[in-house]
């Protein structure tokens, strides 16, 4: 009972913090924190599934989140018909060639007897396949990127509703997780960590460089939205009237309305995933996962297929991160590959899970909200703190100016200190696993 009271109390505390932000700063900021908090909570759920349930050390969260963002573009943007005509079919053919090469190489490895001829054959298949792939692929890419590069220069998407991108983002991430899991899950935990770190960097490199797919660093902006645009609301007579009825000016009211719309959508997703995760945790499957986590050898001796179960939960957790990534790109309304940074999208999510309590879904969700709140608020608080301690220095003092300038970097410092303090004094997190 006291554990339950503690959970409720902590969630109430986060609620109060967000409401205080609304009262003291602005409701706009409060809703911004709430929306990203919801998304962070979903990412934390995904990582908790992998780390808390199964003990898998995945530090490639950023890659899966970015794949979700890619899904948002591929589903919702209108197709660039001229670009498709210029090289769409050839690009697809090129990708097929690449995939066929890899499959052929794997087949050679499997079918031939393990001797020198096999290595030579594999190498030959790979080299020939690569040359063929570049031969088919490169001209198509050039053709596509030449189509009106200032505005499009990429294939565009399918022009479907963006809400569809959320599950598709999950599927895309799941597909990537399957490939990674197949190769890397047999490895030791440190190796898996480095492997996932590498995959995440590669995903970002692809998003940044494959302009035909994502416009690269030119960014895709103006994604369709699942909620109305502020500008439309402000011209809607009915809406203006209701806003005035509440004593709000139309501009503020429209922005709050849109953000609340997102909050509702995100809350629905979070609740669904949380319920599913709780059901999974309490089911025989969840108990088996924890048994494998706590003692792999014993679980294997009981006839559990450890590798398969690991692959399964790795895919599930990554899919959840992909869903969160698609939601985040929807909220931003744009895909900016250069904005994905491991500290923000991988390691911060880890701080959320550890601080909240790994192995406990409510803990992960709480961590998501709490750490995101701190991540946003540490900057103004840090600035105020630095102003306070440098108040005795003259206005133009170099040290004072430098310190005030650097206030933004207090974030990283604070996150590190929070993580270390929790690990030391409450290693099982704020809401420990039961």
């Amino acid at each position: 009972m006291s554990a339950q009271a503690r959970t409720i109390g902590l969630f109430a505390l986060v609620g109060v913090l967000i409401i205080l932000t609304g009262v003291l700063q602005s409701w706009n900021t409060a809703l911004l924190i709430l929306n990203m908090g919801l998304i962070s909570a979903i990412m934390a759920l995904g990582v908790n599934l992998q780390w808390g349930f199964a003990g898998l050390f995945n530090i490639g969260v950023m890659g899966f989140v970015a794949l979700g963002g890619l899904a948002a573009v591929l589903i919702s943007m209108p197709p660039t018909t001229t670009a498709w005509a210029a090289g769409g079919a050839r690009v697809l053919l090129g990708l097929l060639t690449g995939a066929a090469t890899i499959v052929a190489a794997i087949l050679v490895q499997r079918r031939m007897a393990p001797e020198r001829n096999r290595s030579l054959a594999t190498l030959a298949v790979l080299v020939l396949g690569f040359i063929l792939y570049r031969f088919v692929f490169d001209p198509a890419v050039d053709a596509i990127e030449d189509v009106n590069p200032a505005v499009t220069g990429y294939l565009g998407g399918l022009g479907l509703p963006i809400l569809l991108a959320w599950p598709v983002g999950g599927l895309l991430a799941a597909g990537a997780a399957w490939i990674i899991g197949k190769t890397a899950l047999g490895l030791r935990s440190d190796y898996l960590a480095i492997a996932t770190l590498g995959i995440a960097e590669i995903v970002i490199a692809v998003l940044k460089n494959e302009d035909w797919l994502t416009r690269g660093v030119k960014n895709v902006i103006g994604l369709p939205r699942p909620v109305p645009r502020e500008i439309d609301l402000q011209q809607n007579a009915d809406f203006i009237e209701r806003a005035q009825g509440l004593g709000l000016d139309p501009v503020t009211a429209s922005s709050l309305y849109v953000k609340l719309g997102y909050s509702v959508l995100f809350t629905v997703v979070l609740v669904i995933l949380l319920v599913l995760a709780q059901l999974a945790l309490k089911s025989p499957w969840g108990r088996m996962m924890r048994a494998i986590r706590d003692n792999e050898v014993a679980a294997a001796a009981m006839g559990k297929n450890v590798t398969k179960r690991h692959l399964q939960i790795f895919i599930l957790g990554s899919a959840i991160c992909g869903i969160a990534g698609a939601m985040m790109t929807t909220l931003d309304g744009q895909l900016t590959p250069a904005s994905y940074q491991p500290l923000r999208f991988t390691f911060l999510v880890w701080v959320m899970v550890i601080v909240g309590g790994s192995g406990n879904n409510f803990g992960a969700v709480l961590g998501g909200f709490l750490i995101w709140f701190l991540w946003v608020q540490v900057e103004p608080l840090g600035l105020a703190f630095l102003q306070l301690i440098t108040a005795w220095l003259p206005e133009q003092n170099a040290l004072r100016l430098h310190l005030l300038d650097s206030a933004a970097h207090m974030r990283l410092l604070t996150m590190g200190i929070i993580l270390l303090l929790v690990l030391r004094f409450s290693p099982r997190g704020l809401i420990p696993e039961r």
Partner: protein
Amino acid sequence: MDFLNALVALSNFVLIPAVAYGAQLALGALGVTLIYGILRFSNFAHGDTMAFGAMATILVTWALQGAGITFGVLPTALLALPVGIAVTALLLLATDKAVYQFYRRQKAAPVILVIVSMGVMFIMNGIVRFIIGPDDQRFGDGARFIISARDFREMTGLREGLAFKTSQGITIVVAAIAVIALFWFLNKTRTGKSMRAYSDNEDLALLSGINPERVVMYTWLLVAALATTAGVLYGLDKSFKPFTYFQLLLPVFAAAIVGGLGNPVGAILGGFVIAFSEVMFTYAWKKVLTYLMPEALEPSGLVQLLSTDYKFAVSFAILVIVLLFRPTGLMKGKAV
């Protein structure tokens, strides 16, 4: 003649840069591998340790330059390096006392220490950005080239120039000295031997009266020296930017793992394997091939296998291939 030109172009754009980069990675990987061998965890804060060491050295360099002290044709940063190492060593020893020691006494699982090192990574990253800011810093001075491309062309009469930057020369020399000193220390001194004993078999080492805290302290001192040197050399050769150093974590770890975690010789080998493959896969071979091929076969494209931005993909692919075929690395590593 064409063959010589091809050879010069190859050295200029592939061999020399890859050797310098390989030496920097090897120094980084040696630090990672020492921590893994003796403290038994993968230290994710290593990239930021390199950044901190480089930053400390840069600040001292600026102070020296401000006081009008330079090192002639060599970069002033080399004069500042010992101070940078000392400052980094103090930071690492303090971190060990405040953070890692507690978990060592508890005999915490290695993965817990990895997560702890994530916290340390955040803090060090924050400190570096707090003090020097997130932007690019240049701090190299002295002569830029040992041989410039122009001098080389005049000297030899070849069409291709060979530029040998001072930073590359210094990297190779300093890295060689550091590695020789490290191996002398590990193999010849009493402390070095006790470190190797502790790494091979902790219980046996404790039984024979080796003081574990002393071993750990020397490890951190060595790591400070290696990481700072690696950071400063990389900064002199390219430039100093905190985020780049954080990203070095991947190739450095790839080098250490490819060579075999916990194995110092492997770390050096791994560093060069990773560096050479990165440079060779992302270099546009057109120039070299134009000299070598008969005119009819001259390549029309750049003959670049992968764009430079995919260099992470190269270190990663090498890593996966090595792990699939030799799970403990090229040289035998250890597993905790």
